[in-house]
């Protein structure tokens, strides 16, 4: 009789188990939702990384294309040469919209101070301040292109997100063209 009473005292009561379960459950609910959030965040990051890689690849491809073959205009989505534009489907199954906007920086104005090489006192190895003419400019037409690429994609099936970058292309062969 005495032994049975002692056993009862040392055990865990049903009330304790219930309370423990309640606390454990309330702690596990946010942790479980956190796991889901982690998974979604990883997928979102993966989509963004692929978009940035696509952006980099497209602009680097544009830097290698012949100057005269780059189309000029806003919102160009038509693929040309090796530059993939428009809707791109990646092996991971994500869809991206790649858009090019290009325009001439025209006229491109370059300033400089010419040298009066015809002056009798002119020494090409040590030109004096007085040997330089006042500042003048050279204006070049249609020989610098500003290229902006925008890569956009959808998050949560409706929210459109985009990344963009820009570069310039110069036409070094404008005189021979």
């Amino acid at each position, binding site marked *: 009789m005495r032994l049975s009473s002692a056993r009862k005292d040392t055990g*865990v009561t049903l009330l304790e188990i219930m309370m423990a379960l309640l606390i454990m459950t309330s702690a596990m609910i946010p942790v479980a939702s956190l796991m889901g959030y982690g998974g979604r965040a990883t997928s979102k990051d993966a989509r963004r990384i692929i978009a940035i890689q696509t952006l980099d690849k497209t602009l680097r491809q544009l830097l290698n294309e012949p100057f005269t073959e780059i189309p000029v205009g806003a919102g160009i989505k038509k693929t040309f040469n090796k530059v993939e534009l428009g809707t791109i489907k990646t092996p991971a199954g994500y869809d991206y919209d790649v858009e090019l906007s290009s325009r001439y920086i025209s006229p491109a104005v*370059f300033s*400089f101070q010419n040298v009066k090489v015809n002056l009798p006192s002119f020494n090409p190895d040590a030109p004096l301040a007085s040997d330089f003419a006042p500042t003048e400019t050279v204006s070049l037409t249609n020989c610098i292109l500003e290229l902006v690429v925008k890569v956009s994609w959808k998050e949560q099936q409706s929210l459109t997100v985009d990344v963009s970058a820009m570069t310039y292309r110069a036409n070094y062969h404008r005189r021979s063209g």
Partner: protein
Amino acid sequence: MRHQKKSKRGMAVVIVLTLATAILILGTAFLKTIRNQGGRNTIELGAIQADLLAEGITQIAMLKFKEIPGPLYYAYVAKVQGQTDTPLKEYHKDSVLAGELKTPFAAKFQTTYQLLPSKMYDDMNIKISVVVNVTRPDGIDYERNIERTVSGVRRPAF
């Protein structure tokens, strides 16, 4: 004896509370890691934006040198000989070589030409350095420096 029995009561609750706290701490650390990961992607975009912009400005700088090489050469010699540095400063002043962007992202850029002469200026190598500073969406600046060397040979005009 009675005191010993009393101390064992409620132990399950204490253990569970400790465990739950540990889980919550781990969860918070996990959340922090995920948030930092997002920041790292922003850094990567800033680096690519700065890099591509610097590549483009280098092309413009090379075009200017190709079109107007003489004034740069004499301006550099005049500066090195201690005569005047104004013509060299003038050569660097163009807004396409030293300026700032507002769209599609905020950036500042600066171009520097440097002559690397050999054989008393018969061979002329030009180093073009472009420094681009991109301001990330979170307000932190990201800097990229690109250097290109163009080699040239001085030829008599006639």
